[in-house]
Each structure stands twice: as structure tokens, then as C-alpha cells.
């Protein structure tokens, strides 16, 4: 197969299949479509992960390499938090204390794994230097995590009642992300120097701000289009008020249900 065609099939088509599949799996009401969506998501994702082998000639395969590199710690974090959360005070399907302990261990290993990717020799390297997409991923994750944690601090204060513990926890998480960014900006890692980290952090801020502005504009326009369409819809026909006979029948039905079928 020609290289361009290979790149199209194994990367771009796979990405499209992944995107459409995940949208279908999340938003479809029919079980069959949801299952098809899930299958498409898995096939697309596996194809993206395999690009370092299937598209080794293409620079885009570095993205597949990054996905493979962060998959392990990400899954550990997601499953770990799930285990901790659902071993708490949930009325149905509560997990055991061993599951909670396992969850804590998984979260710790996930965090340490991510840290080792910056501060130790586990930095994603592809094909010979540091994976260029890792230089985007890591600062973006830290900066967005910091912003989300401070936002969640305010959110819990607004919607929660007596949630001081959660607010303090969000401050701790924000402090954790901030500390990592300050450390990265002041100390050289084995693969990434502090000057490089700072300039990548600033570029990540530009990326994130661009995503925020672009996504907000798309959502606003989407709502405008739907709003215009809905406004053009004809008014629903207004029904005549119920007659005395209909009201009597409704009263008798309600009384029948309230009394449980017994004569009043």
C-alpha cells in the first residue's frame, strides 16, 4: 500500500472511526447503535495505538506512541478513583475495603508513573528524542488540572452545603499541580530542561485558551442555530379546557386509584 494511503487508513480514518464511535456510544438511545459505537471506538483506538508499527515512516505516529505511553497511568488513575469512590457510602453495589485499598495503590502508582515520565527515565522517547507530543501533553495536563481544581474549589462552594473538606481537598490538588509546574520551571529534568518546560508551558496556555475560545464560539453558534429553528416551529395547538363530564371522570379515576380499588 502507498504511504499516503496507509497514513489515511491507519491514522486519519481510524481517528474518525474513534470519534464517531465514541459519539455514537455516548449519545445514541438504541442499545445496538451504542454497541456498534463502542466497537468502532475500540477499533479506532487500537489502530491509533498501533501507528508506531503500522506507520513508522510518518511523524504522526508519535501521537500513537504518546497515547500508548500515557494509557497505563491514565487507566490506573481512572480505575483507582472508581474503586475509592464506589467503596464509600453508596447505597447499591458498594465495593469492599480491599477494593478501596487497591484503588489507593493504583492512584499512587499512576501519579508516580506520570512523575517518572518527567523526572526519571520513563520520558516517552520517539523516535530518538523526547516525543514532541509529550511536550504538549504534560504542561497542558498540569495547567488544565490547576485551572480545574481552582474552578472546582469555587464550584463546590457554590453548589455544596457544608463541603469545606472537599474545598480544602481541591486546594490541595491545585497546590499539587502548581508545585509540579514550579518545580518543572525551576529544575532540569533528565530529558527536559527548565527553559524548554517554561516555553512549552506558555505554548500550552496559548493552546488551551484557543481551544476554550473556539469551543465556546462553536457552542454559542450551535445554540443559535437550534434556537432559530425552534422559533420557526409553529405553536402547539391549544386544547379546549376539560368539560364537566371529563372532570368528573378524572375525579372518579383518581379516587379509584387513591382508595386502592375499594369503594369509598
Amino acid at each position, binding site marked *: 500500500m502507498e504511504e499516503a494511503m496507509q497514513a489515511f487508513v491507519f491514522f486519519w480514518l481510524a*481517528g474518525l472511526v474513534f470519534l*464517531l464511535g465514541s*459519539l455514537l456510544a455516548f*449519545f445514541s438511545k438504541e442499545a445496538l447503535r451504542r454497541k456498534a459505537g463502542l466497537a468502532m471506538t475500540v477499533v479506532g483506538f487500537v489502530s491509533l495505538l498501533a501507528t508506531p508499527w503500522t506507520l513508522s515512516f510518518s511523524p*504522526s505516529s508519535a*501521537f500513537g506512541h*504518546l*497515547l500508548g505511553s500515557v494509557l497505563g497511568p*491514565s487507566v490506573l488513575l*481512572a480505575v483507582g*478513583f472508581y474503586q*475509592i*469512590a*464506589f467503596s*464509600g457510602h453508596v447505597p447499591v453495589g458498594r465495593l469492599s475495603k480491599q477494593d478501596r485499598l487497591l484503588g489507593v495503590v493504583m492512584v499512587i502508582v499512576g501519579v508516580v508513573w506520570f512523575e517518572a515520565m518527567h523526572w526519571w527515565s520513563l520520558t516517552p522517547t520517539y523516535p530518538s528524542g523526547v516525543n514532541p*507530543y509529550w511536550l*504538549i501533553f*504534560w504542561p*497542558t*495536563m498540569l495547567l*488544565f*488540572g*490547576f*485551572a*480545574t481544581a*481552582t*474552578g*472546582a474549589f*469555587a*464550584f463546590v462552594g*457554590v453548589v455544596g452545603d*457544608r463541603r469545606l*473538606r*472537599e474545598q480544602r*481537598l*481541591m486546594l490541595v*490538588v*491545585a497546590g499539587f499541580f502548581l508545585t509540579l509546574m514550579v518545580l518543572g*520551571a525551576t529544575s532540569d529534568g533528565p530529558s527536559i530542561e527548565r527553559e524548554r518546560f*517554561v*516555553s512549552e*508551558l*506558555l*505554548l500550552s*496556555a*496559548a*493552546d488551551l485558551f*484557543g*481551544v*476554550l*475560545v*473556539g*469551543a465556546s464560539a*462553536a*457552542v454559542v*453558534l450551535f445554540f443559535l*442555530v*437550534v434556537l432559530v*429553528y425552534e422559533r*420557526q416551529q409553529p405553536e402547539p395547538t391549544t386544547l379546549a379546557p376539560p368539560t364537566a363530564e371529563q372532570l368528573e371522570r378524572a375525579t372518579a379515576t383518581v379516587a379509584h386509584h387513591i382508595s386502592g380499588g375499594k369503594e369509598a
Partner: protein
Amino acid sequence: MNGSSPNRTLVRLSAWSLLPSVGFIVILWWFTQPSVEGALVRFVNSMLTSFTLFSFMLLVVLFTYGDARKRPIAPMVGVFAMVAISTGLTVFFLSQGDFLMEANASVRAQYLSNIIRFGTTVAAILVSAVVVGGTLLASILNSPPKVIHFEEE
């Protein structure tokens, strides 16, 4: 929920989400004075890519909306036009000299590179959301159940 107006709440939430990060970035820039060459280009590329891809995703979401409303054509035409316009704008800006071009040989390569970078940003956003959301959910679900005391009538 607290008694303040929805607008004030929204402003407060946005301020808490954005200002600490913006403040940190400004302080970092102030102290380190790094070369921020390319930040504006990254911002514009990211904005255009995000607008195009979000429009595309919302177009797909409209299939569900169309199912519910039984007449999906009209809004889909609108959003399809939106996607076409945003794609056209991106290609137009990319072809206007070197302003939006980074280390790529052609407009198509730049556009594809933008999409991959957008994917990386989204992956980073998802992982950090898992960390923050997971911590919050774990804490809430592990708090002792709250007892509601009713006042005696």
C-alpha cells in the same frame, strides 16, 4: 445553592477557573522571560481547529436531536454550513502567507498537524479532569452520611 444571582455565580466560577492560571502564567513569564515566539500562532491555530472540530462534533450530536424532533434537516443544514464556513476560514487563513504556518511544508500538513495537537490537548484535558473529578467524587462518596435534623413543630 447559594442565594447569589446566576450571572454573578457564573462570573465567580469563571474567575476562579481562569484567574489563578492566568496569574501564574503571567508571573512565570515575568520571572523567566522566555521566548514566546509562536504563541499567537499557536493560539489562532488552536482556536480555528477547535471551532471546526467542535462544530463537527455538534453536527453529529444533532442526529440525536433530529431523532427527538422528527425533523432534523433544518438545524443540520445550519450547522453543516457552520462547519463548512469554519473549515473554509481555516484553509483561507492558512493559505495567507506564513502567518499561521509553523514548521510544515504545506497548508494541508499544517491543518493535519493542528488536528493532532488538538487531540493531544484533549487527551491532557481528559486525564487532568479524571484526577480532579476523581478526587472530588471519591471525597464526597467517602464522607460520612449527613444527618438532617428537623426542627420540632
